[in-house]
């Protein structure tokens, strides 16, 4: 079409074509509407594998039992048997290779998570033994008197010297 009025349209079409060419370089080939369709499944498929490949940090108590049999025997029949080792000692990662030692957290804040008394009747929290953190030996570590692996064991309880 000889008429000059079409020139801007040609420019526009050229711009779109260039855009499509650039797109073929930028957009990965596995980008598309996958299992969940266009509305819920429009994505780069390989991202799913990237998420699946992330390393695990918490390995569950199962991996602790073999080497730490004694501690496990202590805790398994006590009320604290329901608590995973990693909750207090931190994630396993690649222990014993890395880190060589897991933390032993002696702070009050760890125990107070459950044992700061909150009398909420309709929950398990209300049924648990607890203290008032501000009045119950506020300067002391809980572990000075209580053995966390088996809090019911009388032989491990030490009296705080006043």
């Amino acid at each position, binding site marked *: 079409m000889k008429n*000059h009025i079409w*020139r801007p349209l040609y420019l526009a079409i050229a711009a779109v074509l260039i855009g499509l060419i650039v797109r073929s370089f930028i957009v990965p080939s596995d980008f598309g509407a996958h299992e969940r369709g266009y509305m819920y499944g429009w994505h780069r498929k390989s991202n799913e594998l990237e998420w699946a490949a992330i390393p695990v940090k918490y390995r569950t108590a199962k991996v602790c039992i073999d080497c730490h049999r004694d501690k496990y025997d202590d805790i398994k029949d006590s009320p604290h048997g329901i608590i995973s080792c990693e909750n207090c000692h931190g994630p396993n990662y690649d222990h014993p290779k890395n880190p060589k030692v897991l933390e032993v957290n002696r702070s009050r804040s760890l125990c107070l998570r459950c044992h700061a008394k909150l009398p909420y009747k309709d929950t398990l929290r209300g049924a648990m033994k607890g203290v008032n953190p501000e009045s119950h030996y506020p300067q002391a570590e809980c572990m000075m008197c209580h053995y966390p692996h088996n809090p019911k064991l009388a032989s491990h309880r030490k009296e705080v010297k006043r």
Partner: protein
Amino acid sequence: MVHGEVWTLKEFFVYPNEYIYWAIQIVMYPFMTGLVAGAFVLSSLYHVFGVKQLKEIARFSLVFSFALLPCAPLPLLLHLEQPLRNTYVLMTPHFTSAIAAFGIVFMTYGMIVASELWFVYRGHFVARAIELKEKGSGTVDYLACGLFTLLTLGAWDVSEEALHSDEKAVKFLAAAGIPVACFLHGYAGFIFGSVKANALWMTPLMPVIFICSAIVSGIALCILSYIVVVKLRNHMHVRLLKKAGLQASEKLQGADIAIVTITARYLLIFLVLAISLELLDLIFRGYTAVKSWEILRRVIYERDFVKIFVLQYGLGNLVPFILLLLPRPTLRRVVIGTVLVLVGVFMMRWNVVIGGQAFSGSFAGFMEYRLPIIPESLETLKEGLFGALFVAGMPYILFFIFSRVMPVFDVKEA
């Protein structure tokens, strides 16, 4: 600090991950696209509907619309956490999202305005190219000649016939551009109106309210800028003459009050429409009083009362309405009126965007937005006062540059 934490103040119960994520730049974005759409519609009123008195302001508003255009995505670039990935919206658009419409609509609208400008100014480009080729000297003139030659796109024919087909093309594009301009801003309203998770935003009226207030703001800005630019031009004319030791033989025409008054009438029509829809929305919410009304009522009538009723409805709607309707209009009254309208439109964007985040999704807590004034980090620079001023001022800088190539006064025709 996580993104949003530095400018968010939480009160009572707010979900832990809730912050004001859409801040000042998201307020600026619909404001800027609204100006773009409104300026274009104003220009089209002349080209399509042949409202002859709007000829001068039509050329002005078209160039201004083009200067505003690149400033529209600017707030988005400043807002994005990953601005370098901005092209992904064009590369893998997910059209179930209103934001994905941005790519298509923006590009289409840009091409229409650019094409329309080309047809309007082609004669001028040819004239300047020829003039510089024959009489130009030095590098600047050489480069300028090259620029104008490029801009002609090789179409040198400036016969009556050719210029007539230019006019026909302009008319077509101006007409085609109106729905696109409406869509450019309507979709911005849809972005908010379709979010069911936000009790304030979720209403089918949102796209319509946005379009009406966009047109209002565009027209207001054009009237205001037109008056200011004409005044500036006159000032510069007098100064140039003084420098040459001459007296101004005749006072240059100021902005024509007749043109301004007629344009203001169109502004009032859309102003009434916009305020009616907003009041309708408010009345419906109060009447139906659904679950979210309890917290929304406290935000609208208590916490944000001044921002909504005093600034937006009062100063931004009622006062300009009166000012522009008073008999014997003066340029001063029109300037005050249009400035107040723009303040009102800005407050509308603020009250929607920030207002929608003034309450928690739990309906049991509030969030307050503190606009960062002094930038303490890149984040508070981009999403703070400086970022907002940068976006607001950029169209004028661009307009100045564009008007060197596409002048709005004393256009040389071939």
